[in-house]
């Protein structure tokens, strides 16, 4: 393993400390619960927004805390949902009279932790709603799984509900918006290489030099299938196809297009992918109205990328355009 790391157990706390040191005026770090929150939270006149999930997806979600997006993020250890207790304590710290919205990527562990925390918080008299994000088209819903996974598309949900909350929308309205954005957001990713969790010290899976994992999860979960590495345009074609056909997106749609790097792929390649995806969409009569290229939801140092489309209407566009002041870039 070649990483900037001291004791792997301290990886997440040390990262969070760095984040707080880099944003002394706007963020507060609460080490007991791995919590990053707005320095000015809770605001009594605003719904509080909280997102939690495992660490290892930076800038998601700790670097999205700030005016216009999250009030707090409570990450767990690398790839592990936070303990129920951390979520519960986080809700306490940002509890607002207008209520709290919990944003949760749809995984078994996260669902359990957040559902239990919601129950505990409600028993304390806090109004809480929980929204599950499940934009990944790689995993098909079925009777036996917990359903689709939440991946990079969560960015758009956070951005939209954050903007709505900042403008004073009530909890039901904020929830409605989040659910609506989630319902028109679709993502598909692929890995060129495995990632290496600091505590494991070796790659999470073996991927031969000429193979890729199509439909990989952001925790390095295997995807739809292994296949041979091919020219970028063929792989991008497959990613775009999977996303477009799922909703489906059709000719005449206006969309936001995100090319998200998984951590080890440089911007040069991401912009190359962006150009290919943009042209794929243009060829189908789908118009890209907003573009996002960079790292939004990573999988440690995995080389790879995901493509997300959001079907835009005036309401969503307006919320995505609204300003936000967070450590990670959003526009």
């Amino acid at each position: 393993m070649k990483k900037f790391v001291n004791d792997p157990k301290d990886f997440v706390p040390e990262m969070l400390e760095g984040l707080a040191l880099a944003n002394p005026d706007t963020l507060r770090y609460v080490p007991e619960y791995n919590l990053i929150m707005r320095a000015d939270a809770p605001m009594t006149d605003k719904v509080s927004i909280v997102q939690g999930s495992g660490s290892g997806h930076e800038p998601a979600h700790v670097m999205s805390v700030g005016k216009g997006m999250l009030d707090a993020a409570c990450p767990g250890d690398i790839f592990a949902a936070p303990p129920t207790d951390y979520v519960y304590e986080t809700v306490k710290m940002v509890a607002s009279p207008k209520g709290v919205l919990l944003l949760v990527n749809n995984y078994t562990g996260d669902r359990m932790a957040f559902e239990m925390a919601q129950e505990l918080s409600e028993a304390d008299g806090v109004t809480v709603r929980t929204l599950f994000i499940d934009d990944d088209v790689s995993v098909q819903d079925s009777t036996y799984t917990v359903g689709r996974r939440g991946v990079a598309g969560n960015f758009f949900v956070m951005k939209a509900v954050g903007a709505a909350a900042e403008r004073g929308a009530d909890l039901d309205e904020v929830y409605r918006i989040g659910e609506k954005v989630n319902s028109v957001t679709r993502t598909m990713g692929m890995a060129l290489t495995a990632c290496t969790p600091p505590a494991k010290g070796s790659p999470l899976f073996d991927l031969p030099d000429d193979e890729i994992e199509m439909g990989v999860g952001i925790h390095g979960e295997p995807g739809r299938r292994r296949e041979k590495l091919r020219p970028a345009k063929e792989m991008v074609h497959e990613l775009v196809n999977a996303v477009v056909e799922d909703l489906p997106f059709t000719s005449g749609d206006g969309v936001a297009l995100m090319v998200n790097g998984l951590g080890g792929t440089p911007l040069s390649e991401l912009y190359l992918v962006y150009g290919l995806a943009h042209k794929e969409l243009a060829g189908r009569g789908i118009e890209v109205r907003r573009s996002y290229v960079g790292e939004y939801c990573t999988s440690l140092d995995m080389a790879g990328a995901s493509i997300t489309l959001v079907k835009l209407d005036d309401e969503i566009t307006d919320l995505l355009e609204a300003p936000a002041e967070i450590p990670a870039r959003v526009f």
Partner: protein
Amino acid sequence: MSSTTASDLEFVVRTIAQTAVDNEREFSELDAVVGDGDFGFSLARGFEIVIADWDSFDRSSPSTFLKKIALVISKRVGGTSGPLWGTAFLRAAGALGDKTELTAEDAVAVLRAAAEGIKARGRSDLGDKTLLDALIPMTDALEKEIHAGDDPANTSAGLARIAATAARTAADATSTMQAMRGRPSYTGERSIGSPDAGAVAIAVMAERIADEWAARG
């Protein structure tokens, strides 16, 4: 028939905790095959606190003791394992009521309650390729042996060995199953061919308990 005393209970919990800490890397490796490789890390972060705070736990009754363990797990263990193992210990505590002396039947009841808690929390059942597929067969074997009457092997140590053997056989058998719950289920048929990490952890813990029980004499 042998009875499981409160100090036996402490020995079992302590051994589970030590096994989790000692096997952090191995358990994570197992989870890496079709999962996300954090299972060992998650368990170890909780059970190392169990060991560190060992002397401070309220021991006014076996139930209180197990509840304290449940609390530590819930507080510090993340991932799917946090809620599942926390619930398991909490339900185990509930099964004991205010008993102070425990029998082998109580051990079965504790394990059943833990399994039921995991089922409820995880919306899962036998056959989904989870730790339940080691835990339930192990409990079944234990119960069967107890009912078989006063076989000379039917000491505490003998029962522990029977449980361990059953857990190992069952855990190994998860290799041929397709995951229906948890992260490995995303991979569909690709989950076949390797055992479930949680099930193997149950087997390793049961084996260590059997080994050390024998050593206690």
